[in-house]
Structure formats: structure tokens, C-alpha cells
């Protein structure tokens, strides 16, 4: 770990100014990912700007009926917030499917968006990695790539974004609010994370110095028909092999609105309007679900160790949609609700 200085400003504009003035600095929220990366020498800022004293921990209703999640509210406080539990249970489920109670107590909402890939090669300084050191090559392509991307990857990088929370936020079409010396702006969730392309070192579209201040959830929470389904290599405390956020609105048997997002498969939570359009206006049947699944996975490409994820993701989508509609659903999901591997 590098040596660094630390300061905890109390105002957003001060924090942002400090970040701009110190190019080698980094913001630190809960620290659960950054300190890990610093211990691995993947990240080596010389100055940390602590965000914990900023007034960004509130969760409050918005005038338009939405909900604002402060960037510094913890994942735990967010998941268990009465408004989130009641109106956005998909988000509650996704957050609780990730990490552990300890980590969720530390990790912040802004930090969750900023967490970096779990790619073995990215984390290991002994191996080349374009994301860590642009131009050195991608070791995962042709290496061990069970946890890598099947969608939206490039020849430069096949890393995945590891978050569960972000998969739900993508489905819910949250809006990311950021501050910079130039003022505030909003970024739609779909545009926040990016695909690796030929700049795999960039995980997102933040401009230099920008600070996430809040996540705004639109009014529509899909609180009735939703599922977050996470498949992983052990029953808890493991990153997703594949995860699905499914949210529907139903009028009788007819789907009137639909959101589908995948985790564990791409450099960002994976959505596709065409897949959701295949659901909307159609009866909630397995046939419809399979069509949507096929569309969402269209163009998926596997590598030596992760090709199975293509079929697994399709099946997981169908299952998640089945669960969301509670259609003929006989599996005892409650028995392992929190421990589905």
C-alpha cells in the first residue's frame, strides 16, 4: 500500500475542489473496494479525500414521487430503509444478495457504483492487464475466464462489473447525480457504466473530479412483480456467476411493462430495449420469456471457461420472470431465498 495523506472535507464543493487540485487523489466512501485495491497495489493514490463527513447520507422522497438515495448512505441502510423495502423491493433483494452484513454496513451507494472488476488478472500485479495498465494486454482472454464477460466485451478486456445493487439500479432506471466544479449533472444509469472498447481502464463515464452525490429512483418501483435471482459458486458471500433483475407490470396475464438486467455477464449491468419490448404487450408465458431471454443474450460470446453462462443466463432469465409473475411457481424459493447459490 502506498503512503497517502487523508482529509475529510465537510462540504461537497470543497471535496470536489480538493480532488481536482490533487490529480493523484481519490475519493473514499466506505473503503471496502478501494482499500482492498490499495493493499493489492492496484490503486496507489497519494491522497484520500474522505467523504464520510459530507451531508450525503440521507434517503428522502422526491417531489416527483421518486426516492433519492444519498451517495454516502450505506448499502445496509439503503436496503433496509422502509421506503426501499416497500416501494423498491427489487433493490432491497439485490443489495442483500451481495457481499455480507459487515461489508454492506461499510459500503456506500456511490462506492457500489465505483467498485471495480474482480478479474483475477486485474487484481494481480504479476499479470498483464489492459484495465490496470493500458497497453499491456488482456491475460483473461486465453487465460482462466470463468468469471468473465459473455456480452459487450472487447479484444482489450473481458472483465465484468461485479455489483448486484447496480443490476437492480439499471432495471429501475436510476439516475446518477454528480457534482463537479462545473456544477451538477445527471447521468442515466444506462450511460453511467460503459463497455470496455479500447479504453478498458475506464469503468464509467464520470469526468475527472466528478463526485457522485445521489442516486435518484424514479417513481415506478415494480414492487409487485419482481425478482432478483443470483447464481453463484457458494450460497452466500460470492460474486455472481450470473444474476438477473426482473421487474414486470401486469394487467391480468398481459405484461404492460418490463425491465430485465443481467449481472456477471458484462462490463456493465446488461440491458437491451429489444428484449424488454418482446415482453411488453404479450401474455406472461414461458414462450414469451424464452424469446426475451434469447434476445437479451443475442450476440453473446463465450470463452474457454465461461461459455456455459450463455445458456445459464437464458435459463435464469426465464426463471426470474416466472418467479416475478408467480406463474405456476412451485419451487420452494423461501427455503433458500437468501442462499441460492
Amino acid at each position, binding site marked *: 500500500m502506498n503512503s497517502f495523506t487523508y482529509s475529510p472535507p465537510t462540504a461537497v464543493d470543497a471535496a470536489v475542489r480538493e480532488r481536482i487540485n490533487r490529480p493523484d487523489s481519490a475519493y473514499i466512501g466506505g473503503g471496502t473496494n478501494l482499500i482492498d485495491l490499495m493493499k493489492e497495489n492496484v490503486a496507489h493514490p497519494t491522497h484520500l479525500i474522505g467523504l464520510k463527513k459530507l451531508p450525503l447520507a440521507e434517503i428522502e422522497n422526491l417531489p416527483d414521487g421518486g426516492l433519492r438515495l444519498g451517495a454516502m448512505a450505506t448499502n445496509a441502510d439503503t436496503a433496509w430503509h422502509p421506503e426501499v423495502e416497500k416501494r423498491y423491493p427489487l433493490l432491497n433483494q439485490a443489495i442483500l444478495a451481495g457481499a455480507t452484513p459487515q461489508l454492506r454496513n461499510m459500503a456506500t451507494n456511490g462506492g457500489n457504483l465505483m467498485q471495480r472488476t474482480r478479474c483475477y488478472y486485474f487484481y494481480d500485479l504479476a499479470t498483464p492487464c489492459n484495465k490496470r495498465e493500458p497497453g499491456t494486454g488482456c491475460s483473461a482472454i486465453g*487465460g482462466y475466464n470463468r468469471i468473465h464477460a459473455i456480452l459487450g466485451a472487447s479484444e482489450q478486456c473481458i472483465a465484468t462489473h461485479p455489483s448486484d445493487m447496480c443490476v437492480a439500479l439499471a432495471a429501475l432506471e436510476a439516475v446518477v447525480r454528480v457534482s463537479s466544479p462545473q456544477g451538477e449533472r445527471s447521468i442515466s444509469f444506462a450511460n453511467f457504466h460503459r463497455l470496455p472498447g479500447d479504453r478498458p481502464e475506464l469503468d464509467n463515464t464520470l469526468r475527472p473530479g466528478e463526485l457522485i452525490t445521489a442516486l435518484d429512483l424514479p417513481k415506478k418501483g415494480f414492487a409487485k412483480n419482481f425478482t432478483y435471482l443470483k447464481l453463484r459458486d457458494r*450460497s452466500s458471500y460470492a460474486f455472481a456467476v450470473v444474476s438477473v433483475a426482473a421487474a414486470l407490470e401486469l394487467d391480468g396475464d398481459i405484461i404492460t411493462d418490463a425491465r430485465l438486467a443481467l449481472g456477471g455477464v458484462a462490463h456493465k449491468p446488461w440491458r437491451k430495449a429489444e428484449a424488454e419490448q418482446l415482453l411488453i404487450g404479450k401474455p406472461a408465458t414461458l414462450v414469451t420469456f424464452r424469446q426475451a431471454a434469447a434476445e437479451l443474450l443475442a450476440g453473446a460470446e463465450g470463452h474457454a471457461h465461461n461459455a*456455459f453462462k450463455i445458456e445459464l443466463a437464458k435459463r435464469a432469465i426465464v426463471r426470474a420472470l416466472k418467479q416475478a409473475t408467480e406463474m405456476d411457481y412451485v419451487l420452494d424459493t423461501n427455503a433458500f431465498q437468501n442462499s441460492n*447459490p
Partner: protein
Amino acid sequence: MSQTIANPPVVRLGTDYIGKPTSRVDGTAKVTGAAKYAAEYNVPNLLYGVVVCSHITKGRITKIHAADVLAVPGVVQVFSHENVPSLAWFDHNYKDDVAPGGSPFRPLHEPEIRFNMQPVALVVADTFELARYAASILEIEYEVEPHETDLEKKRDDGYEPGRGKSGWMPPPPPRGNPNQAYRKAPHQHEAEYIHLAQHHNPMEMFATTVEWLGDGQKLNIFDKTQGAYNVQQYITKIFGLSKEEARVITKYTGGGFGSGLRPQYQAFMAVLAALELKQSVRVSLTRQQMFSFGHRPHTLQYVKLAADDNGTLQALHHSALAETSQFEDFTENVVNWSGMLYQCENVKLKYQLAKADVFSPLDMRAPGAATGSYALEVAMDELAYKAGIDPLQFRLLNYADRDQNADKPFSSKKLRECYHQGAAKFGWDKRNPKPRSMRKNGKLVGYGMATGVWDATQKKAAAKACFTADGRLTVSSASNDIGTGTYTIMTQIAAQTLGLPLEAVTFVLGDTNLPEAPVQGGSWTAASVGSAVEAVCQDLGKSLLKLAQKMDDSPLKGVDFEDVQFVNGLIRRNDDIQQSVVIRDVLQANGEKELTAESGAAPDMMKQMGYSMHAHNAVFVEVQVDEELGTLHVTRVVNAVAAGRILNPKTARSQVLGSIVWGIGMALMEETIMDHGFGRFMNHNLAEYHIPVMADIHDLQVVFVEEEDEIVNPLGVKGIGEVGLLGVAAAISNAAFHATGKRVRDLPVLINKLM
């Protein structure tokens, strides 16, 4: 003690502790955080060392840019092969008690790189953070050579090891005519079974705190190890120290599972730095570095089995090819068990190694047997289906009443009772034999079973007992408690042998100033140290009796040791239990402050040589599989174990529960993935090397089958730390097949293999 109370009165005695569920005597220290582990001795003026590991697999170091690092204020030294002083030259100085054949790896000895993550430097600084930082900026240049780390590429390079480590037995010669018998039999099965490397990953990372006590003085070496004496002899031989100069202390060990059998390199480095810098030094490994030394080796196994229409085994072939390092022949008994577990006249066993550019593998819980029993027991299941016989019935039909490998009877073997009691508790009779026939809550349900055998071993051990006038007994031996319950069972044995309340007895371990005990491994501690503790307490009891007989009006005058019993704080006559002396009065009455005895125990070779001595188990597993998604849950496990006398059912049950959890890990998630392009383990952390979490664990039940054995040792114990693991991974694999009809022959059974 069986002699002491040969004819005890019928009433249960208050100081009879053996066989009673007893809470750990070190429990309070562990739940309050007071128990101190190796990295927790905060001695004054402590320096911190951080290890730098190679990121190449083969080649040599051409330059170490130490000067840049030494220029950082607070950095004290960078140790590497360039500046390590002349140390012992011969291989035997580097051989520890558990070393396999070959030439042990010498840390910081030469520029050659022989495996990835080879420790190449130790950076020592005033604080841990500074040492960690300095280590991270140390630049090392290498000349890289091509490597080969993949056992799959070495299939044709297998050789039969001629030199193993102690305890390793080459496979017995073939018996009968296995090839012909196989060809003639109506039911045949052959298949390959594979698992990759697995790592022990005890929760406590390896660490050594060396306390520098002054020039010409002594080192106190607080080390994480499973054998204090083993570390001491290693350190003294390498550094030319006397035993007095290198005291090794290990009061608590945060898990071992075999990883601490051999001295690890941080112990060498911490001692080196302390001697060179004449200051106290602590070296702790990182979790990543916990993947830089021994592991359960990647092993390829081939099993061929055949049976006749009655279900009688006609032929058994079992061969294994395992990786080892370029410098040592790590050997474990993988295939031998297959010639012993079932009655079979035609057997051929083969065990080979292949050299790869990896570090030497290392014994990992039930070494060899966990590997071998997995392949054999899945193969047995496969053949049972082919022969149309229930897998349990198939095993009962081929039950071995005699060890055919050694051509000896078993000293005791209650495996049949394990099968019966385990099956009854599990409800095996409710199994529909047809695969894919059982369902629950929309999931496929599978029942599977398997079995295992493990050595019952006793090693030589010594112990000391000291009884003081305040009525307290302290018994000591340089054994370990890696979580096995040594502190507790030794206290129970000592208390019962001398008839004292548990609270009056303290057992001390983990210190080379104490009488020698073997490394804690092989499930032999209870038998070995337990026998020594019993022996030394009996010796002390004899002295106590003599003193008691000197007391005025002693009712014990003239009686022999065999004619008295030590119970409830009294020495009393067998023939009239009202005639007694209070033990704690004995020293005071004689004006003595303390009474000590030193003694030991060794296996009774004459008694044992005619027998094959083993513990056995039978495991029954229920799984539920969501076939569409490939997810599998182990919903129920019954593990029936026959391991001789159970000294403490409470701690012994925990050992078996832990073994089941290990089996679940082995079956479903554990594998260390090497990128052979780099020759480097890539999932070298606990986020990606998955071990089970609580959510993976459901209904686990342990059955101890009563088993008396007067041959293995006077206590009749066989050891319980490893046998419980055997068969678990196979039973889960077999249950997965019963549930799904899919046979997975390479561990672990991940989502993608079942969907």
C-alpha cells in the same frame, strides 16, 4: 487408567471425565479474544518483515534494486539471496520431521526461481505499514525460462517414487489376476477422476514473532505451527543454534489441517532477520502468500472395477498420478486404501508422481485418503448401478473382514455397524434406487453414500506432571491444539487418572521447554499424547500413593497401586472404598511442596504387529438439485464413524462436523485454479477460493459407533480429526448422480457441470 480402576464400583464417579461431553477448557480464552496466536505477542522494539514473492515461475533473479527501498526512512534491511549469511550447507539440515524425499526448498538461498510466488526477499522496517509499502516498491529483475506446471501435460512422465516421507507406503504388489478377472466379469466400470490443487487456508495466516533476548541469549520463537519441536530442530540445524537458544512457542494455532506440519518460510525469515539485526522481528504472510506453499496436489486417478452377477467384486485397479515439485517427491497414500476397504482377490494398485514447476504439495486433511476415497467410492457407486445392486448393499456384500494388503486381521472394525446405524438414522430405506426418481418442492432429490478408512496411529510422546500442595495438577507436553481439543481431552485424561476435579487440572502445551510430542497430524495426538499423559499421571499416582502410605494412620498402608483407585479427590481402597486419603492432603502431610513425574508412552509394537489398525466411516447424503439452474444444496448428511473410544463426544462431534464441511467444500467449490501460461494460481484469495459459508451448511448429523480396541493403545482411541472427511465428497457426487442421472467425475461439482 483402565488398570487403576479395573473393577470400579458401579456408581459413576464425579471425576470420570473420559467419554463425557466436556466443554473446551480453553473456551473462555477463545471467546474473549485472550487466546494469543503467533502474530499477537507484541514484544518491545519489534520490527516487521514483509515477504516479496516471485511473479515468474522459472528462471533466475538478475537484479534486486534494494538500494531504492533501503533509502526509504524506516526501512531497516532487505534480505535476499544476495546478502543472506552463510548457513547450513547440507540438505539434511533443512529436512524437517515431515519432509518428503528430495532436496528441501531453501528460502533466500539462490537466485534460481523454481515456482511461482517463490519468496525472494524479506523487507524489514520499523512498522508493518512501512515494510508492506517498501516491499511493494522493491523492483526485481528476472531472466525468464519456460516452465511447465500442468499435470495434464505430464501424463506420460509419471514415475514411481522411491523415496517418500515417513508414513508413506508404496502400493502393495498386485494380487490375483486383476486383468483377467476384469475381462471375465459381467459388470465392468472404468473411469478417470480428477481434482485440481486445493489449499488448506487455515483462518490464521502463517506468522512468526521472534523475540530477541540479547546477544548470546535466546530467541523466543512464537510460531504458527503444528509441531513446535519440528520447527525447533529445523531452525537450530539451519542456523547452528542450540536448543536453548531457540525456544519455539505455539500456545494457540488458528487452524492447521496439515499446512503447519512443515516449518513454513516465514519462520526461517523471521529468525534470520532477528539474528542478523539483533532485534525482535515479526513476519506474517498475506492471504495471497498462503497459496505460495504446500497444497493438496492436483491428481488424476483411474479406477477399473468389475463384479459378478451376485455383486461380488472380481477385480479392482486403482492408479493415481499426482504432481510434485522439481525438488521433492511429495508422496501420500492415495491408492492403498482401495486394496483394504473391500474384499477382493484381484487387485492392482499404482501410484506415480510427475514433476512440475510448482512448490511441493503438502499433507492436507486426510492426505491421500481424501483423494483416493473420492475416486474409489464414486467408482463403487457407478459399478453398483451397473450391477443393479443398492450401493449400500454392494458395500456390505464386499465387506472386508481382514486387511488383504497386509494380510492381517483388523484390531477392530465396526464399519458394518456404521453402515447399519448410519443408514437407519438417515432413512436410506426410503431411497428409490432409480436416478431422477425423487423430487421435493420442484427440485430433484438424490441420496448418495460412501465410505472411508483411515490409519489409527500412535507415536512416541513424552509428558510431565506436577502436583502441588494446593491440590492442583499441571500436566504438560509440547503437543498442539489446532482446534482438535487437545487442551480439553488431555485435561480430562489427567483429571480422571488422578481422580481430581477438572478445575484442579491444567494442561500446558506448545513449547519446546516441555517434554517432546510429535507434530499434530495424522489424527494421532489423542492416542500418542493421551497415552503419555495417562502414563505420567499413573507414575505420579504411584508416588502419591507412597506418600499417602507414610501418613499417620494411613488406611492405604501395604496396598499396591493396583489395589487403589483415584476418584473424587481421594485415593481409596478397591476392597473398601470407605478407606481413603484426600489427595490434596498428601503433600502437606508429608511436608512436600510439589511432586513431579516425567514419563512417556510409545506404541506397543509387540502387541500391534499382528494387526491392521484403522478407523472407518460411512457417509449418507441428501442433495437437492435445481437442474435447470445447476444449483445443488447438501440438505442432509449423516456421518457414522467408528474410531475406537471417543474421549470427548462434544469436541469429537465438532471434528466430524468440520470434516463434513470440508467434504462439502471439496465436493462443491474448492479448487485452486492455475493459469498454466503464467504457472500461477489465480484465485489466490478467499473471495475466489471458495470455502463453505454458513449458508451452505444444513442438517449435519454425527453418529459415533461404539468400538472397543485394546490393541491400538491403552486408551483405545483411534483419532477423529480426519476420518470424518472421507467419503463425503464421493457421497455428494453419488447423490448428485442419483438426483440428476449426471455423473460428474471432476471436482468440484459446479453449476456448469449439473445444468
